[in-house]
């Protein structure tokens, strides 16, 4: 049952509040030293799951193992986890040093050891000069660093992050994101990170678990999630601007929508053989070939530009395909205007095909 290289195992975890099911028989294996991001829109149960792992919420059913130890009924402090909260949650009446030492003192650690650990954490997080300040005298970024330090000094197996960057402004968020990634590279601890920000998820994660309504819809590397989304929800959730969807029919290797027909040669079906059925074709705006690249694409077409949104690094072009709005991401230098007819190219290998009824990947 116990596989040594699994850091956190979650087995059939269920949590209900009265009639509301927040987590539903959820299973998740997190590897040793892995950076796992729980991603989903609000209310999907990602923070609830994290609180269950931390021991702050008692699950209705199921079990949690950390390093092979069943921790389902252990106190948070006995689980070998440290947690970083969105609101920092620093103790306002204590100095930074007091905040860092609170957990160690609760564990009755000798003072010399406490001092050594605080010194080490302060060095790693570059906050030696802040140790005697109160949280009120720190900036948002510094506060969050102290919050990370509080988990660091306790020398835990697993770091839990609950939307740690959501309270920071955009610039600081990007800086601290890099710092967290660097921290993970240096420490090699297992980290579980909850966010609703797909950029954070894509940049930080070794693997992403996309959650919806208390279930994990897809667990995979950022590359898998982006290129081979398991269902339409994941495909729609990841990527900005989001994926184009065409409603139609899949018949013997060809996707038809109205008078449009696209041969799906080169598309890797999830199952070797599938029956003809109503289907949805998903194409990312950045996977539509334009300009000189059209010639290399297996499928060609032409669209009329409706609207142009220049964004500096690239330009988003709105057009109509099969009677529905269709987004195309072009180079920022491309000069197009509404009314222009532009050639486009598609590669079925980069597209995603979903069953119209189940919305699962075909």
């Amino acid at each position, binding site marked *: 049952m116990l596989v040594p290289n699994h850091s956190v195992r979650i087995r059939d975890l269920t949590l209900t509040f009265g009639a509301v099911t927040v987590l539903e028989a959820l299973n998740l294996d997190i590897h040793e030293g892995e950076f796992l991001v729980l991603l989903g829109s609000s209310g999907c149960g990602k923070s609830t799951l994290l609180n269950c792992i931390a021991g702050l919420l008692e699950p209705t059913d199921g079990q949690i193992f950390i390093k092979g130890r069943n921790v389902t009924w252990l106190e948070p402090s006995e689980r070998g986890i440290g*947690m970083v909260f969105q609101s920092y949650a620093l*103790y306002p009446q204590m100095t930074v040093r007091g905040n860092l030492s609170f957990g160690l003192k609760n564990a009755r650690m000798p003072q010399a050891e406490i001092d050594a650990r605080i010194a080490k954490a302060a060095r790693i997080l570059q906050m030696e000069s802040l140790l005697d300040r109160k949280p009120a005298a720190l900036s948002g970024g510094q506060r969050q660093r102290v919050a990370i330090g509080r988990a660091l000094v306790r020398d835990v197996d697993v770091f839990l992050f609950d939307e740690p960057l959501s309270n920071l402004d955009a610039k600081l968020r990007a800086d601290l994101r890099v710092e967290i990634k660097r921290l993970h590279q240096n420490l090699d601890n297992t980290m579980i990170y909850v966010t609703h920000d797909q950029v954070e998820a894509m940049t930080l994660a070794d693997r992403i678990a996309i959650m919806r309504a208390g279930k994990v819809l897809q667990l995979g590397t950022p590359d898998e999630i982006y290129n081979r989304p398991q269902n339409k929800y994941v495909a729609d959730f990841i990527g900005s601007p989001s994926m184009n969807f065409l409603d139609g029919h899949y018949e013997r290797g060809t996707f038809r929508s109205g008078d449009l027909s696209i041969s799906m040669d080169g598309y890797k079906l999830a199952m070797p053989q599938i029956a003809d059925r109503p289907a949805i074709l998903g194409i990312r705006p950045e996977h539509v070939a334009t300009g000189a690249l059209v010639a290399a694409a297996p499928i060609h077409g032409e669209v009329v530009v409706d609207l142009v949104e220049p964004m500096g690094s690239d330009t988003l072009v709105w057009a109509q395909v099969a009677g529905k709005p269709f987004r195309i991401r072009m180079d920022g230098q491309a000069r197009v205007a509404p009314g222009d007819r532009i050639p486009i190219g598609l590669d079925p290998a980069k597209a995603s095909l979903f069953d119209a009824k189940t919305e699962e990947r075909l």
Partner: protein
Amino acid sequence: MADPASLNTLAALDPVHGRTGAVGDMAGPRGRRPRRALSRGNIMLYGILLLVSVYYLLPLWVMVMTSLKGMPEIRVGNIFAPPMEVTFQPWVKAWAEACTGLNCDGLSRGFWNSVRITVPSVVVSIAVASVSGYALARWRFKGSEAFFAILLIGAFIPYQVMLYPIVILLRELGLYGSLSGLVLVHTIFGMPINVLLFRNYFAAMPEELFKAARVDGAGFWRIFFQIMMPMSLPIFVVSMIIQITGIWNDFLFGVVFTVPENYPMTVQLNNIVASVQGVKEYNVNMAATLLTGLVPLIVYFASGKLFVRGIAAGAVKG
């Protein structure tokens, strides 16, 4: 910061700008905003405030003046006039010599009884209420909501309904007539409002702080004493004021649950003032009343600022 008025003067002295006046126009109005001290609104406002203040202060004035007069002067009948001859004899008599029943040691006995009732009642009730409020806000147990609802209902049941059952209860406990019995009653009756106060205050404190402390290995008591309590001084002050004034001013429980030698100050005051034998000594009565009211008055004056801060705390985040 530079005084805006002096800046204005400098601008006026500046030959170029002074002539053209352009800068002044461009920068908009400068200097202090003109305010009319005697606007109609202000007259109205201060007039009403003054009237209301006089209305409320007049009785106090009459009491203080009367308490400083001798009986012959009181019989003259001009209750608003200041004393022609100031005497502190009524105060001394009220404190140390006035008779109630067989005891003739004045209000001092009642004062010390009230202190012996109020201090333990306030300490015990706040200690119990704060921990209960904390538990109800942060350590939800099965049935905690129902428990809280029942507690609140307690606040709406009239005291009179509970008097007799409590008399029986205290008798069975062997506490009837004793000060500790009265302390127990005050503690219990202080629970609903104070638990509500503490629960709401603790519930408004960020939950993540509590979670962080649990992850740091702190238990029920350590979180209470080291995290929650240092952050909740205002609510402790509010609760203390409510309890001190409420218990000090209590008359009903004092007269029902104690025996004459343990009567609190309020009951003794009533017995002095309402005594039907002999001459009515208005000056002594006034002095006695002022003495009894002194404690709540001092509490309000000393903590008024904190009281307002405590009531307002939690209303605004941060």
